[in-house]
């Protein structure tokens, strides 16, 4: 593995790949640059850094360039599909796409190209967003490091020896490596926010039901939520508005107007948080939290205060049970959701040689098609749902879930948003926690409560940790359907953070030296 340097002689992002999505959108709209040029620049960047980063599982340059040319044509004819038309994006490989495989990071679906587009992919295409390719992930979104991908880990652009978080490490690494200005992730227990935190990017888990799950290959149906990722809060907001909104194909999608998140981000950028009540979650601090993470968090809280926010401490006593409840509910649902991978209709088939009967083919396929973590969770879930254990495990976990929702409800009676560190530590080394599932699970300690309650949550970079110079994330949590508050607070904080440090955080990402 090559090392990184941050000198100007490194092969850093070009003029175009260094821009944010909103900047690119403005240039494309003004005709200063074509979507095709922008796409080409990103494809070149991908080619240059992928050997080091491995953020992508598939790149479809031809399709991307065609989509870019269509966006250019539309603009020339005065009918740009959306404000983000022509801007490139990296899509997590858990969304079905008809023009590329959808593997979910698993051998099970290695060669599977779906016969239908997910609603998210469809909305991106309708908006003229250029899908560059599909990003790496922990197998079936189970993991916090992207090491559980069957196709090899993704490397954190801040330090290639470290993980980019997970499960959506591919999407956040693609952003941090300037391979794409926008990305889509999914968040079941923190899979958008934790990778965002450890790569110094912005990731949002919208309100459950805010973005359609149709075509999102399910891990845990009652927790999974698709969301936007970007290098800035405004970019995430613009993407949020493209993908959000009711979908009649998803019964759990909310039939209500999408919160005005772009307007909220622009309003927040003015840097005035007077009247905003911010609650600091008392339970998310102390043992297990890296010193630099806590320091960064406390500094962020001070910044919020300086912006006029009224900061109070809030207790959420049941949050300590969230991790346990999560590791019953998510595996239970996953054991059922992943039952369909049985070699009958699609995907891998092992042992179909005339020597094995149907049940044996199913078993062999599942034995060889699933990785260790997926099997672990299927077994956990199968056990938790078994008769005689259901009440003690799944039933009890659902009660905890209700209590956590109540904690949020009573907290949101006192404050408008809650804040905490996104994850207790900065990026860990590849392999460091691979044999210690509990240590791995703890990475999602702070993010899981929002999944269990279904409310909206964001991770925004809060600088770097003093010990290791690695990025830290500030988590902002808002009530369901109040996603706009995340963007207002997040954008205000982001502006103040960059003003205080004298430069944008993304400008401090080490520039990757290209091996060739």
């Amino acid at each position, binding site marked *: 593995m090559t090392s990184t340097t941050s000198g100007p002689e490194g092969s850093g992002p070009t003029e175009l790949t260094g821009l944010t999505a909103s900047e690119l959108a403005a240039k494309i709209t003004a005709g200063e640059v074509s979507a095709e040029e922008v796409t080409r620049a990103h494809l070149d960047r991908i080619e240059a850094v992928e050997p080091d980063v491995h953020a992508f599982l598939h790149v479809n340059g031809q399709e991307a360039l065609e989509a870019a040319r269509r966006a250019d044509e539309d603009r020339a004819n005065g009918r740009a599909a959306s404000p983000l038309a022509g801007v490139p994006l990296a899509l997590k490989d858990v*969304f*079905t796409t008809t023009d590329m495989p*959808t593997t*979910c990071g698993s051998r099970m*679906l290695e060669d*599977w190209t*779906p*016969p*239908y587009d*997910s609603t998210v992919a469809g909305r991106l295409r309708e908006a003229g967003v250029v899908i560059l390719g599909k990003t790496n992930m922990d197998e079936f979104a189970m993991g916090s490091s992207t090491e559980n991908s069957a196709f090899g880990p993704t490397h954190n652009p801040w330090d290639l020896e470290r993980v980019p978080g997970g499960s959506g490490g591919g999407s956040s690494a693609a952003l941090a490596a300037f391979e794409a200005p926008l990305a889509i992730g999914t968040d079941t227990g923190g899979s958008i926010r934790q990778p965002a935190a450890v790569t110094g990017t912005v990731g949002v888990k919208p309100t459950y039901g805010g973005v359609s*799950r*149709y*075509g*999102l*290959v*399910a891990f*845990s*149906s*009652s927790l999974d939520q698709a969301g936007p990722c970007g290098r800035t809060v405004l970019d995430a907001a613009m993407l949020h508005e493209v993908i959000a909104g009711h979908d*009649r*194909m*998803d*019964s*759990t999608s909310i039939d209500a107007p999408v919160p005005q998140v772009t307007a909220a981000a622009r309003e927040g950028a003015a840097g005035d948080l007077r009247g905003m009540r911010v609650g600091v979650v008392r339970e998310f601090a102390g043992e297990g939290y890296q010193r630099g993470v806590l320091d960064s968090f406390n500094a962020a809280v001070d910044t919020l205060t300086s912006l006029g926010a009224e900061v109070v401490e809030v207790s959420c006593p049941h949050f300590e049970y969230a991790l346990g409840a999560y590791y019953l509910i998510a595996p*239970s*649902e996953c*054991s*059922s959701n992943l*039952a*369909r*991978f*049985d070699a*009958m*209709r*699609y995907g891998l088939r092992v042992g179909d040689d005339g020597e094995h009967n*149907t*049940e044996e083919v*199913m078993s062999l396929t599942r034995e060889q098609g699933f990785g260790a973590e997926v099997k672990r969770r299927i077994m956990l879930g*199968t056990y938790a*749902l*078994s*008769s005689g254990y*259901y009440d003690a495990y*799944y039933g009890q976990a659902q009660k905890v879930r209700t209590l956590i929702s109540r904690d949020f409800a009573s907290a949101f009676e006192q404050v408008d948003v809650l804040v905490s560190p996104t994850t207790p530590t900065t990026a860990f080394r590849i392999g460091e926690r691979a044999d210690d599932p509990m240590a791995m699970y703890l990475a999602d300690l702070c993010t899981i409560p929002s999944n269990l309650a279904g409310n909206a949550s964001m991770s925004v970079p809060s600088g770097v940790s003093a010990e290791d110079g690695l990025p830290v994330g500030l988590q902002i949590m808002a009530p369901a359907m109040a996603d706009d508050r995340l963007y207002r607070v997040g954008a205000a904080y982001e502006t103040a953070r960059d003003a205080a440090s004298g430069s944008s955080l993304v400008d401090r990402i080490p520039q990757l030296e290209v091996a060739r």
Partner: protein
Amino acid sequence: MTAVAEIMDYDEVLRNFDPVLGLEVHVELSTATKMFCGCANEFGAEPNTRVCPVCLGMPGALPVVNGTAVESAIRIGLALNCQVAEWCRFARKNYFYPDMPKNFQTSQYDEPIVFDGHLDVVLDDGETFRVGIERAHMEEDTGKSSHVGGAAGRIHGAEHSLLDYNRAGVPLIEIVTKPITDAGERAPEVARAYVTALRDLLRSMGVSDVRMDQGSLRCDANVSLTPKGSTRFGTRTETKNVNSFRSIERAVRFEMRRHAALLNEGAEIVQETRHFDESSGETSSGRRKEEAEDYRYFPEPDLVPIAPSRDWVEQLRGTLPEMPWERRRRAQEQWELSDEELRDLVNAGALDLIAATVDAGASPSEARSWWVAYLTQRANERGGELASLPITPEQVARVIELVNEGKLTHKLARQVVDGVLDGRGGPDEVIAADELEVVSDDSSLQAAVDEALAAQPDAAEKIRGGKVQAAGAIVGAVMKATQGQADAKRVRELVLAACGQQ
């Protein structure tokens, strides 16, 4: 457990045991689309042509509940005197089977949409027996496997299997009775009468085709025996593959006799699924339930709960049609039937068909005559039930109408009905295709009459002389010339007119 069990004489069974019955009936709803997707709900299409990512269980696909199916479930519940849940959910029933695309069935578990009702069924002697309804719930059907090679289409020994997912996701209602403990010797008859009554009810509601032969009505019969004087239920068996009303009765009777023989020897009943063999009238051991199966039910997270408002429920109650038993009472009065005549019509499965034919405009006597005579004969020839004949009451009423209008003779009418039964379209289509309509065009008839009169001058002379009965020979000749397609009455009028007798 494959050896043919000894069976006990039926009377002896009853001297020693009381039977306990439980009936589970699966009904496929005749909604336009499937339970959770927009695919057409059709029987008999080319395999795997009525499928989509949702009903194939593709990764990422999600279900959306069919509102009409929920409506049907509530209406069925109301017709069965059930309570309607204020709030209920779907649940996942997890087990692996190749014809189940997701390897779980989206069903309902401890929160059924309707529960606690009853159905009064009329037995052969006219007595009424009340069957308690435990619950009815919504679920989706599975696909269909066919096993190639090996014996009798069973999976064991098959070389390979073919899967057709057209049926996967078809809406099903499962109706479960409370244990039927007081039927005694009439248990087999009660089982048949219950399923028959349920079929009549569902058909009158228009919610299902209720065709046992096509699988849109399926019955599993649970049977156990309690020794006389005991209150504990014995071990039960569940007999599947029961494809006709008569088979239900036979299967229950056989299982009672088999259980009794085993219990009498001190042997244990194995809790298992049994298959009914239509030809032998016996059951054989199927899947053995050594341990209670663990389906790991949990609430379906991809669907939202259903909370039918009380207003909606009452509105649906208002849409219930006349119930079959009400219709029977009314038919008996209006058609002036004796109890015996009524029972014969009911047992022949003709009453509702006749009533529907009357509703479609025919007179009761004509409708009865068609269904009880000609159509019953055709059904017997085909070895099926009257209701399974591929002709509708509306079509029969249309044929009757055409006869009354003089456009069909009775002979032609039977040809038209045969055409419909052969699947050649409705009555008017068959008539058009075969040019069966009575020749009523006077000019062509007139020519035939003139020709016949010219050919038989003697007869013509007699008629002119007032011997009107001689017209028969001329009419006969004309009918022969027109190959029976003329209206004999009209021909006679023309003959008499031509001879100056009118």
